[in-house]
């Protein structure tokens, strides 16, 4: 168990792959946030490009559809002056029976420097990182129900921008924890950064076994779970959860767990509302809340670029040093 995070580092201890938050130190997470901060402040100015990854080739290897995540990775790489290739694998190689590893080795032969991988199976990014050539970095852009570490880092970045001291914060994560890679990575990051408490709020059907072992307090209703929290993170509800008999109807879910202005009153006066997107209005969140003054959902999207620039430049430096 202990050596599975070791794969993320070079022998000199530098971050080489970014696969999961688990096993990363508080100082490393803080460093990522600091580097992202420097990119963010510059991004808000006119000249947006940095020459840090000039001459590098990055492939966005998406085995699962995504618009937002891929776009922000694409922009992040472009702003670092890298060459970017987007590959939608679900419609090409693997459907011809090519194995995951064959796909990777074929792309490797084209002298790629970094893979940004999204895959529907837990552990896929880890598996690729174990098998790629040593000079290639792998960034996990979401694997199955396991991890989505760049999303978690941009969420930490957002929280830090609005709330100064992590150690004082209570955070609630609401929705489908069982199937959520975002929630798993967020919970790990929040605990490493040392928040006061993480609440998860969901019906039992959307909670994993022994959820407390993740380092959270479990609540089945919004009133108790939202009490006194500083940050409310809503998760997207996948439509197929109804077919799997995990929930009766969208409207019942909205009634119990949808974030309305009324329920938001249980949280602190100055609480912020976050969502990894894309949002289902009227399912997990009311439009008034999503578009309201406490919502920082669109900020999350723009911060996503700076955070991904930070992670890409840091990991690429590690592999660059190795050559």
């Amino acid at each position: 168990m202990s050596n599975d995070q070791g794969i993320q580092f070079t022998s000199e201890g530098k971050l080489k792959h970014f696969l999961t938050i688990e096993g990363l130190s508080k100082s490393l997470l803080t460093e990522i946030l600091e580097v992202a901060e420097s990119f963010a402040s510059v991004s808000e100015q006119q000249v947006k490009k940095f020459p840090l990854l000039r001459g590098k080739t990055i492939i966005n290897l998406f085995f699962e559809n995504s618009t937002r995540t891929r776009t922000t990775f694409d922009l992040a790489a472009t702003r670092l002056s890298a060459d970017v290739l987007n590959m939608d694998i679900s419609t090409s190689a693997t459907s011809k029976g090519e194995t995951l590893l064959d796909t990777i080795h074929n792309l490797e032969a084209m002298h790629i420097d970094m893979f940004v991988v999204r895959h529907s199976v837990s552990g896929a990014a880890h598996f690729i990182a174990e098998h790629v050539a040593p000079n290639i970095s792998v960034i996990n852009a979401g694997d199955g129900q396991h991890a989505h570490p760049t999303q978690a880092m941009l969420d930490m970045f957002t929280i830090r921008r609005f709330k100064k001291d992590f150690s004082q914060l209570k955070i609630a994560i609401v929705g489908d924890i069982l199937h959520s890679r975002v929630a798993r990575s967020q919970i790990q990051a929040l605990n490493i950064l040392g928040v006061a408490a993480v609440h998860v709020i969901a019906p039992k059907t959307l909670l994993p076994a022994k959820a407390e072992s993740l380092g959270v307090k479990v609540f089945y209703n919004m009133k108790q779970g939202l009490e006194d929290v500083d940050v409310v993170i809503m998760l997207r509800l996948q439509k197929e959860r109804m077919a799997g008999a995990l929930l009766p109807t969208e409207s019942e879910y909205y009634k119990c767990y949808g974030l309305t202005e009324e329920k938001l009153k249980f949280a602190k006066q100055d609480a912020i509302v976050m969502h990894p997107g894309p949002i289902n209005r009227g399912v997990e969140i009311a439009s008034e809340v999503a578009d309201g003054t406490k919502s920082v959902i669109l900020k999350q999207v723009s911060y996503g670029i700076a955070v991904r620039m930070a992670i890409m430049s840091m990991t690429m430096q590690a592999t660059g040093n190795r050559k």
Partner: protein
Amino acid sequence: MTRIHISQGRIIDPENGTDSIGDIYIADNRIFSIMGRPEGFDADITIDASSQVICPGFIDLSVRLREPGATQKATIASEVKAAAASGVTALCIPPDTSPCIDNPAVVELIDDKAKAAGYGQIYPIGALTYKLQGQELSSMFALKNAGCIAVSNAQMPINNLLILRRAMEYAASFDLLLIYQPQDYHLSHQGCAHEGTIATRYGLPAIPEIAETTALLQCLELVAHTGCKVHFGQISCARSIDFIRQAKDAGLPVSADVAIHQLHLTEHDVLPFDGVYHVNPPFRTEGDRQALRKAVSEGVLDAICSDHQPHNIDAKLGAFPETEPGVSSLETLLPLTLRLVNENELNLMQAIVALTINPANILGLDTPSLKVGELADLCIFDPGKIWQINTQNWLSSGKNTPFWQQNLQGKVAHTIQNGQVVFSQGNSR
């Protein structure tokens, strides 16, 4: 006919509970003498068994040979060599070959291949339902006549309880043993790891304990109703043991086994994303592991099997949930069982009972014994020998074991099947 003299071994005969140093003489496939050298006995082969244990050959209740259907993983020829090297002199093949064992022609094919490979006692388990589809009954009577020792649906689901009830009633009519791996299809569907802290942390689709216990309880009720003899294969949960114990106490005709690796590994040993730890049922909690060990020592779990499932490299290469489940485990059966003895979980006699006479009794075979006149199926092993699992010492085509490159203690030196030496490593001449 080969005449064999085995000298000065520690002879352990679980049938009459004896444990003493002595010689065994084999002639005409049978044990000819165990007292002294019969007059005029001229051995073709002499085996020096000093500091070694001589016991009946092991009977393994679940060994996948991968033939017919998956010869890229292994063949009957490759795996019977591994079986012989593991001291296994008789083995059962689950019916999920391809084509599956649902007609006498497949039984015959397996038989022919085993004979050609020079291995005597292979017992195919017939399919319980046609094509293992869980819908229509197989021709169980024909399968029994063709040589199937039991019937089973392996890990394939049975559509509903009515079909299971009918299948059990029909099997009971012909006194056929049902081998049942309790696991509810819907509760376990697409799962790959125990539903617990590890699966939760790594986001792995999970197989809960209740997938096993609810299926077990339903089947136990049907045993009480139909009178069908049932053997439960590869039990993994502590709670299942309680139910099996109660059923036995109530006099139901049931027995159970556990796969050897379940007695050693837990969910916490599972390195996430290393497919070699992907097994079904999954490695469970420390509490389950301890309960399984205790149940073997108390005889609630009657037998230890290898649950041998050799794979090719590709089958284990991928993200964890996408790899194929199963461990190549024939060759670790003895050393991992002896580890339980060294850890004082079992005594050596109990360990040998779980590998020999208990599986024989479950299958309705003659109780193996080291008496004069018995068929000579023997295992001679060195309980102290330390060896490393590596390509030089490994015979199975499947190298998918979590113990790869580890040092294990206890190695088979000679295996004698039907009075013939089928495996030999060491002191014979």
